[in-house]
């Protein structure tokens, strides 16, 4: 579904990604972890072309991201993305946040979009908040709305960029629960996160990044059982004992 082939990216002379190669197959849940500044957020943003890269190629469902003739808006409309800081549109109500892209991008009728949005809100447990504005919701609620907004586009894959790191601790689980449910339903997901509990529960594969490189890319049991690199061992012992 997604293939990354030798992705390299520089900010000026500083190399943020070097030769990253991996793939995500349909129905797979891949967790990307690593210390901050390791390039994991940058990597996931390359997949839907939010971050340009200088070398390598990414294709999503057979369509190359960095070719000039690629219709990027169309490609992005099929890839759901959830951000660290939610990024709901503050001037729109919750229901409008969920319906604006289906109506304007997918050209769905308003009724159809609202119907679908209400189902999704029910699914994340927020149908009673449809008329509110994002600023009136808690962080956890906002992030659940953001997940529903991405799902409203019927994406073929969902990208999560540290979806719980901006949340108060007691709100993390309500967001993770929604994500676990999504994973169990077979959604293809790539998740940048430090939540190792989530990784252990639903991930098929774990990618460990350090200094812009993919250091380990192995199935979950192998990764947690016996990480090969010293860097990953250190990372895991720190993160699991804290």
């Amino acid at each position, binding site marked *: 579904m997604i293939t990354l082939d030798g992705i390299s990216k520089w900010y000026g002379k500083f190399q943020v990604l070097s030769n990253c190669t991996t793939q995500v197959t349909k129905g797979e849940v891949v967790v990307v972890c690593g210390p901050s500044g390791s390039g994991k957020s940058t990597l996931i*943003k390359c997949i*839907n072309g*939010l971050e340009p890269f200088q070398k390598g190629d990414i294709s999503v469902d057979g369509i190359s991201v960095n070719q000039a003739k690629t219709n990027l*808006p*169309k490609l*992005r*409309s*099929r*890839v*759901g*993305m959830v*951000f660290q*800081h939610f*990024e*709901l*549109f*503050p*001037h729109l109500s919750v229901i409008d946040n969920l319906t*604006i*892209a289906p109506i*304007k*991008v*997918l050209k769905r009728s308003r009724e159809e979009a609202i119907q679908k949005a209400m189902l999704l809100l029910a699914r994340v447990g927020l149908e009673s908040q449809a008329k509110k*504005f*994002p*600023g*009136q919701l808690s962080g956890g609620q906002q992030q659940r709305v953001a997940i529903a*907004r*991405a799902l409203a*586009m019927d994406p073929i894959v969902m990208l999560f960029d540290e979806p719980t790191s901006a949340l108060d601790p007691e709100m993390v689980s309500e967001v993770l629960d929604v994500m676990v449910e999504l994973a169990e339903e077979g959604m293809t997901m790539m998740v940048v996160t430090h939540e190792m509990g989530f990784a252990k529960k639903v991930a098929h594969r774990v990618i460990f990044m350090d200094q812009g490189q993919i250091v380990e890319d192995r199935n979950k049991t192998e990764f947690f059982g016996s990480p090969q690199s010293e860097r990953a061992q250190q990372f895991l012992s720190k993160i699991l004992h804290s």
Partner: protein
Amino acid sequence: MGDFDFDVIARSLPYLWKGMEYTLILTLTAMAGGIFFGTLLAIAKLSSIPPLSIAATAYVNLMRSTPLVLVIFWFYFLVPLLAQAITGSEQPVPVGPDQTALISFTLFEIAYYCEIIRAGIQSIPTGQVSAGKALGFTYFQQMLYVVLPQAFRNMLPVLLTQSIVLFQDTSLVYVISATDFLGAASKVAQRDSRLVEMYSFVAVIYFLISFTLSQFVKRLQLKFSIVR
């Protein structure tokens, strides 16, 4: 107060009102044109296509570095000659003070509104832009549904303040003898030799309107700020 004759105001009210009408038309036209074209110009200025952003920047710099009176004069005296050259007519083609004022004010205000709107667009966090892109919006959808609605809410007070300044600036059209509110009052004042009465009256009216509007802007500002 024996030497003052405030009756002159009452006598000339219909004429003064005609002047005020023109002032309001001029203000609203320059405001509407300024905001509409200013938005397009701001988008051009921020565009990643060099010829577009260079042309837009040049226009804004030119207008903002030129006194408004000069723009009005240019237009009033040069456009007739230009029109003559283009149409090949024997005499300069007169444009008339009213049209001159409408067009030159709009052209001038576009540059000022453009700078306000550019700052407003740039005040929208990049995360919002990313979120719009990630949902599949094209550049223009993104502007229309995500960036501009938030930007306009943020800049509403500044836009209105600029419009109040514009309302006062329209009095400059007296230099080409257009009959705006001040122009009308001035003509009456000269005719009846009642300069003090008429100019005092004009000053009070300008103050009342501008002050009321700026109080209104203050209240609007509180009401419109976005809850984040």
